[in-house]
């Protein structure tokens, strides 16, 4: 039954994106009715359990769906990552009432984004300045968030804040008085991802919109959200890689130069071989990370980071090769390899930059091998 549901969602993604990704990239927006249809089908947070009206996909099936979405349109896939993160946070940390209130909505048409970054807090989220104060039944949020993926489409934003001596996560309706959303003009990649600045001045929400654990001294909830996001992005990178392989291989057998298809020229063939290997490597890393997620293995933290790290780097290498192979046929905005080239670069920045990934993996290297 779950397999059927996964197939249905895959088909829905294919039908709704169809051949529109180029237009959405050029327009810098996905039509709202497309986002709504994806949300209504639960296609943006496919792990939400059946008891909450969600598709109930497991980590592998949800990952494969994210890869499929990523192969079609990284902007739309990035909405899936954001919404999936919110649904995961409510599932993992929310109380029963929050789960019953928000999960059916998220799996049935509502949209959501997650707000971490601030003007002075990117890789160093401990520098966050947005504050949450709770006074009786009310929670008050003040601060500014930047580059919030999906914020332009979101009904709710899960906002991470400073609270007491730690951090807290609170669900804020995007139409709350005092909350202002300003789209990022002309982003480099995932141009239709609805990235926006979110400014909050004395925004008041019911105190029960705050996830339990407010004051979390470890930043554990942030890491928990990022772990989900990284796994989703790793699968999204796999989608980028697959779309590039598909475009480059098809072109290389068709395009003739020097009296032969360019696939027969060794310098081109060499790129195709490397691209094939990259797809295999990232597939295995994603599958391993999904298995760690399914099994609640403590290794999942590193497995997820590794998959995201390698996935993003490989997506960049593969996209660069694909542009090189298609050459003038690929060097126009909106086209599949041009989008991949720009979108892949963002994957090295969001949810932990490549630099942060390397530092974490270096820590592991020392813990395991020193």
């Amino acid at each position, binding site marked *: 039954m779950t397999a059927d549901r996964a197939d249905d969602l895959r088909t829905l993604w294919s039908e709704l994106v169809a051949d529109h990704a180029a237009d959405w990239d050029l327009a810098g927006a996905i039509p709202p009715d497309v986002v709504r249809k994806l949300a209504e089908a639960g296609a943006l947070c496919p792990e939400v359990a059946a008891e909450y009206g969600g598709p109930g996909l497991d980590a592998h099936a949800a990952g494969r769906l994210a890869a499929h979405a990523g192969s079609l349109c990284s902007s739309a896939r990035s909405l899936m990552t954001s919404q999936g993160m919110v649904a995961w946070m409510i599932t993992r*940390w929310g*109380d029963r009432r929050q789960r019953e209130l928000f999960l059916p909505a998220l799996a049935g048409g509502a949209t959501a984004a997650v707000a971490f970054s601030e003007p002075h807090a990117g890789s160093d989220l401990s520098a966050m300045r947005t504050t949450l104060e709770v006074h009786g039944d009310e929670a008050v949020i003040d601060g500014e968030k930047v580059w919030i993926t999906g914020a332009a489409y979101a009904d709710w934003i899960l906002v991470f804040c400073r609270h007491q001596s*730690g951090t807290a996560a609170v669900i804020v309706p995007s139409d709350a008085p005092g909350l202002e959303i300003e789209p990022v003009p002309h982003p480099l990649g995932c141009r239709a991802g609805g990235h926006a600045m979110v400014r909050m001045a004395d925004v008041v929400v019911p105190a029960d919109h705050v*996830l*339990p*654990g*407010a*004051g*979390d*001294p*470890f*930043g*554990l*909830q*942030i*890491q*928990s959200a990022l*772990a989900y996001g990284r796994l989703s992005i790793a699968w999204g990178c796999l989608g980028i890689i697959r779309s590039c392989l598909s475009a480059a291989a098809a072109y290389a057998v068709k395009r003739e130069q020097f009296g032969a298809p360019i696939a027969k020229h060794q310098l081109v063939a060499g790129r195709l071989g490397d691209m094939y290997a990259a797809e295999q490597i990232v597939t295995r890393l994603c599958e391993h990370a999904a298995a760690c997620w399914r*099994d*609640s*293995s*403590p*290794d*999942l*933290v*590193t497995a997820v*980071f590794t998959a995201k790290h390698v996935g993003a780097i490989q997506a960049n290498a593969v996209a660069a090769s694909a542009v090189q192979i298609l050459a003038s046929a690929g060097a126009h905005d909106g086209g599949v390899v041009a989008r991949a080239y720009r979108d892949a670069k963002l994957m090295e920045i969001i949810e932990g930059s490549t630099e942060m990934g390397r530092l*974490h993996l270096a*820590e592991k290297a*020392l*813990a*395991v091998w*020193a």
Partner: protein
Amino acid sequence: MTETTQNSVGTGSSTHQELLAFLDAKTGRTLDASSDLFASGISSLFALQLVVHLEEKYGVTVGGADLKMDNFRTVDAMVALIGRLRGATG
């Protein structure tokens, strides 16, 4: 109350041994049951790894209300937390 739980498990319990072995394997640091983990500067990523481990290994759920420094400061504290969470669910 915490003390009773600790005493009933004992500082040399298999849970203590297992957690110390886990910390040794994952951080490369040899600690004892009362060593302050935060004094050695654990990262938030490692904290997540630790919570996932407690949940998977001992069949408990660490909820938001338990996200307190004192619950994770030492192996003793974590053993007490596990005991309390098991009592709560069982």
